Every structure is written in structure tokens, then in C-alpha cells.
């Protein structure tokens, strides 16, 4: 009995050899929960891929978790006014990617949440110039991008990973269909906002939830975004989808129309009500 409650806390996984179906779930991962289905793979391939993905999530958490004072980002944030600080190659790469997203989204996707800030990232160092970093709007996308690589390396073609509801990686297709179909739910009413068919694609949804509004900060004003808007970004790349759904929360319709074509294969929609 004790053993099982331990497993429950750590998440669980299960493989059905008849249906060649793997399901895994972790209740606490990067601040939310991860569930996934892997179809048509051997038990070994599915389990190894799942374990690898989880250990990768652990690494990302150690790097990016703002609520862990020992994470690299926390340490960097704590030293934000004291000039250039050495950063790990991994973080340097992620910071550079975020700077790229910032310019491609006309400044709307901003991990400093401050339009006036500027980061200097070079030669293994980063200077925050007084700003602080929050990777909440992109971490899940990176994780799913890595998952896609891990699963593909194991020869897995069909998988559906759902990270905290809002970020979905759909590889290949449903065992009984030619894609994976999901509907996006309005958290205020429970109604379906839209339905998407995903095949080798990612979906990211941003929006406020009842009791949790204003968490998306407009870098131009520093204010939290109130109200009921849901944005849905569908892209081949999970991290692109993540950046775009966040950016679409802040963009006007015209801004979004000019930003979207800068991302390959992107389809982004805003739903206001």
C-alpha cells in the first residue's frame, strides 16, 4: 500500500501490451502536471522515452524554476544589478532564443516583462541590466520540443503529450484516426471554443482562468492583462507555439497578422468574449 501511494505522488505509468498503449502521468512537474499517451511502441521504447523526458524536465526545472532559490535563473535574478554574470551554455542558448522571440514578436513576448529592459548575452555571460527573468511563458514549449526529439530517437511515431492542459505535442496520429483531435475549452463557461486537428503539430493555449487573472504582463505597460481572452497557437514547433500564444494575448489583431508570418507554419487565433 505504501508503495502505491509513493507511486501516486511520483506519478504513474502503465503499458497495455495488447493495445501497445503507454500512458504516463506526473502530478507535479514544472509547476503543473504532465500526461501522455504513446501508441504503437514497444514497452521498452515507451518507458525509456518517458523516463528520459522526465529526467530532462528535472534538468529544465533546475535551470528555470523561479520559485526554487537555487535554480540558475533565481541566482541570476538575485544578482540582476551587478553586471555580466557567467551562465551555463544551456541557459545562454535559451536566453538567445528568447531575445530572438522578442524581436520576432515586436517586443510582445518578453521574459523580462519590461519593454525598456535590454539583455546582453555574450561569451558565456549574461547581463540583465536590472531586469528579472520569467520563463513561465516558454519553458513548457522547450520541454515539449525536447520530448519530440527524445521520442523520435526511440522510433516513436505516435504520441500525445499534454502539459498542464495548455501545451500539447501531437506526434503522428491517434491509433484510430489520421491525426489527434482536441477541443479548446473556455475555463469560464466550460464550452468548447474551437476544435483542432493536430498531426505532427503543437498547440499552445493562453488565457485567464477564473480566480487566476492578470498573470500575463504587458511589457509595454507593466500591467497584468485582465478580462477573458483565449489565444490558440498551432505550430510545427512547440516552443514557437508557446511564444505565440502568449504574444497573441497582448497583440491587437493587426499586430498579430504581421507577427504570425514570421513563424513557419504558424496558425494563431484570438478569441475574445
Amino acid at each position: 500500500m505504501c508503495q502505491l501511494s509513493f507511486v501516486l505522488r511520483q506519478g504513474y505509468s502503465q503499458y497495455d501490451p495488447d493495445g501497445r498503449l503507454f500512458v504516463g502521468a506526473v502530478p507535479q512537474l514544472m509547476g503543473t502536471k504532465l500526461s501522455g499517451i504513446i501508441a504503437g511502441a514497444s514497452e521498452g521504447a515507451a518507458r525509456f522515452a518517458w523516463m528520459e523526458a522526465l529526467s530532462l524536465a528535472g534538468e529544465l526545472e533546475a535551470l528555470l524554476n523561479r520559485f526554487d532559490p537555487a535554480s540558475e535563473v533565481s541566482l541570476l535574478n538575485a544578482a540582476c544589478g551587478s553586471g555580466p554574470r557567467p551562465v551555463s551554455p544551456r541557459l545562454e542558448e535559451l536566453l538567445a532564443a528568447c531575445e530572438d522571440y522578442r524581436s520576432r514578436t515586436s517586443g510582445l513576448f518578453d521574459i523580462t516583462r519590461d519593454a525598456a529592459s535590454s539583455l546582453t548575452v555574450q561569451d558565456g555571460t549574461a547581463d540583465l541590466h536590472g531586469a528579472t527573468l520569467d520563463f513561465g511563458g516558454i519553458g513548457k514549449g522547450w520541454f515539449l520540443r525536447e520530448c519530440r526529439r527524445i521520442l523520435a530517437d526511440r522510433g516513436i511515431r505516435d504520441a500525445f503529450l499534454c502539459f498542464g492542459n495548455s501545451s500539447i505535442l501531437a506526434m503522428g496520429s491517434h491509433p484510430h484516426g489520421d491525426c489527434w483531435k482536441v477541443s479548446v475549452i473556455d475555463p469560464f463557461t466550460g464550452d468548447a471554443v474551437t476544435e483542432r486537428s493536430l498531426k505532427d503539430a503543437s498547440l499552445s493555449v493562453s488565457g485567464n482562468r477564473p480566480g487566476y487573472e492578470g498573470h500575463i504582463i504587458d511589457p509595454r505597460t507593466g500591467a497584468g492583462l485582465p478580462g477573458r481572452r483565449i489565444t490558440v497557437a498551432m505550430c510545427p514547433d512547440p516552443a514557437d507555439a508557446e511564444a505565440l500564444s502568449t504574444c497573441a494575448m497582448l497583440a491587437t489583431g493587426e499586430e498579430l497578422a504581421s507577427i504570425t508570418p514570421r513563424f513557419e507554419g504558424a496558425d494563431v487565433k484570438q478569441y475574445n468574449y
Partner: protein
Amino acid sequence: MTNNRNESIDMGLRNFIKTLGCMTGGTALLATTPWLTSCTPEKLEEAARERRARIGVIGTGSRGQYHIHNLLKIQIAEIVALCDIYQPNLDAAAKLVPGARLYKDHRKLLEDKDIDGVIIATPLGTHAALTIDSLEAGKHTFCEKAMALTMDQCKAVYDKYRDSDRVLFYCMQRMYDEKYVKAFQMIRTGLIGDIVGMRCHWFRNADWRREVPSPELERLINWRLYRENSAGLMTELGSHQLEVCTLVADKMPTRVAGFGDIVYWKDGREVYDTVSLTYQFGDGRNIVYESLISNKFNGMEEQILGKAGTVDLSKGVYYLEEDDLVFGVRQLLTQVRDGVFAAVPTAGPSWRPELRDKYVPHAILKQASGAATGQNMIGEQNDGSDIILEAFCQSCITGERARNVVEECYSATILCLMGNQAMDEKRVVSLPEEYIIPYMKF
């Protein structure tokens, strides 16, 4: 020649055991539910090849006739005799089974040499005497719950059973209800972690009264309302629910306190229409029990509360405290397994721990089984009553007893009667030493 019989072998019991076996690999399941070892498909086949069980029914009122309907569908059973002291009920049953020998005195039925097994579906006050008579007459016996009206009677029946070699069943149908059995098994393997408590209730909105053609029949027909024959809500409803609690806990509570009264149906009845009790195990865990029959809002539930989740046995569902699978993915999983391709409501703004999901019910059985509402006085369909009856018929042929059924009914009945005593005397009642049997664990 035997083939014909084989083909028509009873599918209910056979499927029941088969699906349970498949779920967990047969023997493992049977080890945690030992009462099922008497009715494996192999034994059923063997019994069916031998002959049919010749059954007599004593008490052909509403429950008796319900059993007759089930018996008529059981291939290995043959109803040969009927007995009731009330002519209209005997006539009604005789219509269902033309050709059955009819008796007005149960002793005459028991003298009938061509009867293997006897089913007793009479008022509670008669259970002990009829059961003892039946065992003494050498009949395999199936008696309705509860075991008896008093603790002394329970002990007398138990002792008689212990000293006899006959089969004895009590209609503890939850022990043969697929969703319960599967749930027992899942709880044993740690589905909801350590069990920390139990809550059961049964609410109805009906007075329990039946129309009486002439006043002198009041106590015969409305026997449930009078203490000479009935122990009220506790034995009529509570016995089933307390029984599953002791089965799941694998332990017997040691004391009880509670209140009972006649709150609404002040019509001359003697048994409470409202009861509320707490049974305590030796380790401090409680069963909270409640029943009343003037409001049905809460229906019937048997909740097993675990550190990691909750099982509602009567509805056949469980809930986890930390539900790690996102709701939509769980739906997707079900779809993939069922070969369905459709959109699942997975996506939405990010889930965060502080916005935890509502408790999501998970089904104990893959296929929906009729979750009983507990509102039917005679019995529900597919609640295990037909299966336990079939298991009994099989035992009538093989002579093999079903383990634990008598002991479970004994324990549950003792708990019911302790509860009544606690309410009557308005004090905490402990399990009296003299009624402890070796089966009980504390």
C-alpha cells in the same frame, strides 16, 4: 448427451467469475475473495453435468417472488416446492411455478425428501428458527439477510451451522456484485492508499407501509414496522452496508454510539425511521452510518475513504486525491481503448495546482454496470442477488460451502443489533465477548 446441458450452462455466474478472473489472473482474485472459490466455471460445469438442484422456497412474498423470477432463469435449478402462511402470496408464487408442491407449514416442506436446497425469504423474526429447522432437516439453506432478530439467535444459528455439514448462504449480494468485488480487489492492492474511514448512508422517501386487506393482518404484512419481527433500518438496509465495511477493513468495529428516533412516520410503528451512528474500530477509525426514510436526496452510498482516494462502492466509482492524469487525456485513453476517434477537451489555459480540478469519477468496471439507487424495496436488477443465488444452487449440487458468507452476515447483523441497542439505551455499546466468533479480526 451431456453436451446439451453444457451449452445451456448458466451464463450469469459463469461470466461473472470469468470477467473477475480475467481482470486479475483468476487465482489471485480468488485468494482475496475466497467465497468465490466454491463457484468456479469448472465446478459449475461439473455440477451441471450431474443434475439440477431441487429448490424449495419458504416465504413467497415480494422478495421470495423476486428470487423465484431469478431461479427460473437458472439452468441448474428447479423449483419444486413453495411455502407460505399467507394464501394470497402462496397463490401468486404458485402461478409463477405451476406444478410446484405447495405447503402452508414450513416443517412439511422440510420433510419433503426431494428437496436439496431451501430458500428462506420471510420476515427477520423468523429467520433463526427457520434456518435452524432447515439445517436440522438436512437441507442446504439460503436465507435472506439479516441473520436474526437478536444476538442470541445469531449465535444459535452460527453454532448450528458450525456443527452441521450443510451449505448455508445469506443473501449478502454485494459479495457477488461484480463492481463490489472488483473494488474490494482494487482497494486491497492499494488503489486509495491506507483506509482512514468509511461513510455509508441510505436515504429513501417512502413509509415502508403496505396496504392491509383486513386489520388482523397488519403485523403479518407490515412486519417491518414492528419490533417483534423487525430490527428496522439497521437490519433491512444497514446490514448490507456495514457488511461491505467490515469486508473492506478486514476488521470488526468494537463499539458504537448513535441516535435513532421516529421523526416523521408517527403512524404507530415501533422501529426508527431515522438513524445516525458511529462505529469505531479498535484503531480509532470510524464508520459513520446514516439512514432515514423521509428524504431521498442523498440516495445510497458506501464511501471508503483512503489517504490517496475514495471509492464509492455502490456507484462503482473511485476518485483520487491527487489525480495526475489530466482529464482530457484520461478521456483520450478511454477512446483509444474503445476504438473511438473524436476530439477530447484537453486544451485550455494552463492548469496550475492552485486551480485543482474537481474530483473526477473513475469507473471501477470497464462497462457501465447498473449503479443501484437504493430506492427499490424488493431488490435491484444485476446487484449480485441472482449471482449469489446461482452460487447457492451450485453448492446444493456439490455440497461445497462458500467461505465467509455466513461469517460476514453474522458480523454485520451483530453490528446492526449493537447499533439498535446503542440507540435504544442512548449509550456507547461495545461488542459483547460472548458474541465474538473466531472469524472476527480487530
